[in-house]
């Protein structure tokens, strides 16, 4: 085995919560753009979708409790095709990570340090993540156990502090333009709620692989609840401006004013972003490295940490000329492809493995 570490199912839940928590900062804008004041319904829909996607991913993974998708895809569809699928996932884990790294840099550049070159953030976070994953999966898991409660408390704090500013009128009329905008609003965030795809790499390292379904569902429900809270507060506080802001949650944090004493708490957001972002980058990085090592049949994954890290850093800087290209791609271009990889392929593999009686049944 490439990885000797084991993580508990609780840690897996925390990992998923942490990697999804960063999306809370920008998703409200994307959802509101389509669904307007019904955005909260979209959040509920996408949470349901996330649970369903997690169910597919976990069902597939638990049929092969000792292997990752790179290893068992060949079993299901045959060696050559399995290699192709494996390669898709290797590239996917690297590619999606470049988006994450760039988004982190963009938030810092836009809101806190406009004059700092973006490469500083990219190199910094990839370097830290590289160090973490060389030490193995357990390190990331423990980090997320520390960070994610923190992140959730921060989000709660923001909601609690900005709560007095909510104007209930802004939630009405419900379903003004029918149900279509609500569905459209659920579409761009779907790809983030299906990021539980990392579990196809992690299930073999769980203490109880059979409990993966529960861990994923728990995590998605918790993050869905928080997303719902933030979405509702954003709708009530910012109204139509939610759609115009790049990071509505940040704008809300800046709007907080409690007795002239607690004001402009956006550093809290910075904490969420650094903590959650680091785990997210680290986890995708880890999955990419592990997948590549297994795909190449290496005995050690550590040799790949550095080259893939360099690749991630460089790609995150050169892939997009400016921030508008980045947001355009996230909202308009990548969703169908990423969703196909995150949900489509696992679903096909699951169906095929059941039909062909591979995995699971043999025990």
């Amino acid at each position, binding site marked *: 085995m490439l990885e000797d570490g084991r993580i508990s199912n609780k840690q897996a839940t925390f990992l998923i919560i942490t990697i999804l928590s960063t999306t809370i900062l920008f998703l409200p804008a994307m959802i509101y753009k389509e669904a307007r004041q019904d955005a909260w319904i979209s959040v509920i829909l996408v949470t349901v979708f996330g649970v369903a996607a997690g169910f597919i991913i976990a069902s597939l993974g638990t049929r092969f409790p000792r292997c990752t998708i790179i290893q068992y895809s060949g079993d299901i569809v045959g060696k050559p095709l399995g290699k192709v699928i494996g390669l898709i996932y290797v590239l996917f884990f690297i590619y999606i990570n470049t988006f994450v790294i760039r988004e982190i840099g963009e938030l810092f550049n836009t809101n806190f340090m406009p*004059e700092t070159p973006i490469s500083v953030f990219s190199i910094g976070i990839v370097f830290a993540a590289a160090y973490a994953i060389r030490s193995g999966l357990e390190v990331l898991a423990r980090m997320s156990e520390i960070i994610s409660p923190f992140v959730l408390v921060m989000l709660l704090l923001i909601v609690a502090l900005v709560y007095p500013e909510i104007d209930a*009128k802004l939630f009405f*009329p419900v379903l*003004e333009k029918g149900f279509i905008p609500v569905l459209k609003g659920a579409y761009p965030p779907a790809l983030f709620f299906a990021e539980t795809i990392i579990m196809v790499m992690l299930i073999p390292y769980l203490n109880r692989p059979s409990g993966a379904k529960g861990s994923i569902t728990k995590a998605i429900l918790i993050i869905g609840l928080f997303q719902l809270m933030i979405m509702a507060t954003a709708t009530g506080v*910012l*109204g*139509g401006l939610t759609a115009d802001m790049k990071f509505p949650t940040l704008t809300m944090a*800046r709007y907080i004013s409690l007795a002239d004493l607690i004001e402009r708490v956006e550093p809290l957001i910075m904490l969420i972003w650094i903590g959650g972002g680091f785990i997210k980058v680290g986890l995708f990085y880890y999955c990419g490295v592990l997948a590549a090592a297994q795909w190449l049949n290496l005995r050690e994954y550590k040799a790949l940490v550095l080259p893939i890290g360099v690749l991630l850093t460089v790609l995150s800087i050169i892939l997009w000329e400016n921030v508008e290209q980045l947001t355009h791609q996230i909202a308009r271009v990548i969703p169908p492809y990423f969703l196909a990889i995150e949900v489509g392929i696992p679903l096909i593999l699951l169906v095929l493995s059941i039909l062909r009686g591979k995995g699971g049944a043999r025990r």
Partner: protein
Amino acid sequence: MKKTAFYALLFCSILLLPGCWNWVDIEERGIVAALGIDKAVEEGQLEVTAQIIKPGEIKAGGGGGGGGEAVAVYTGTGYDLFDAVRNLARQTGRKLYFPEMAVLVLGEDLAREGVGSVMDLIVRDHEPGVRTWVLVARGQAKEVLETPIPTEKVWGFGLGKMIKSIRAHSKAPAVNVLDFLKVVESTTTCPVATGILIVGAEKKPEQEAVAPGKKPVLGETAVFKEYKMTGWLDEIQTRGMLWIKGEVKSGIIVVPSPKNENKLVALEIIRAASEIKPEISDGRVTVTVKITEEGNIGEVEPDKIDIAKPGFIEAIEARQREVIENEVWAAVARAQELNADVFGFGEAVRRKYPREWPQYEKMWGELFPALDVMVEVEAKIRRTGMVSKPVSQGPK
């Protein structure tokens, strides 16, 4: 050995890590307390006035006062706000720093031309807060910023406090950047901003300390259509608007005494709420505004009347209701005259009739000036203070 060298290297990195290369000490920052924007004399240019805090003076002036002013006011021009602000550094020697900015004062001329790009910079840039209050100066914003407020060291913060104390009289709206932009989003509702004007004449500096000659006074409402100002609501119309929007927090209503028209009774507004109820029947839109208010008797001119007598309170309540109704009607009439739906009647229709709304939305501009508005006011007097009747000479 290798380990020691490694830790030594790590230790040295401490020297490099703290701070960024673009750090600026707080004393070196030009901390802006208030920003004023006017149309410049030069065609197409903006004149920007910035009130900058002098950190040294704030500390020094703590006890005995005296000394210099705690703020310095600079004025400069540029092709747009950002340009002008950066040009100011040519005079101040400091790059302006906006997170502490309390108020944004817009000159009337500029407001009438449009403030879209100004508002855009305020939300686009990461430094200014979205809580910055928006004021429109009757006249020049520059004059407002140059006028001292004797009770405050930092005049700009004084302006901010004036807005916070609006709740005492409810004769001006309190609007911050976010409130303003939230309303701009709507296709029918018109944003408003607090009006401010300078009253009084110039005095000699030594007199100024006691009773300021020139002083800024809040009041009235600047009405915008999207980003362009179209007119003013006076103080009565303003409170009428606030009644409708449910934003009256407190204030004083003065009514003639029911027994003697020459004597006055002042009523304090304790709480107020409003409800806008639109109705569409046979394609006609009507809006009913329902206002409920509770007040206390605050001040009675001595008279031979006993306010404890049955009937007196009811009579006062009726007069109070009348005053509120008149204020509301004044606001509605003025808003219809300006064809500016400052109350959000359109949005209320949209919320209640989302299906029918699109057809009304397009012609709201024609509908609103002739809109049927009904006003229902329920005004109560709850308490009468610590005396049961005005103190006057001898027994009756």
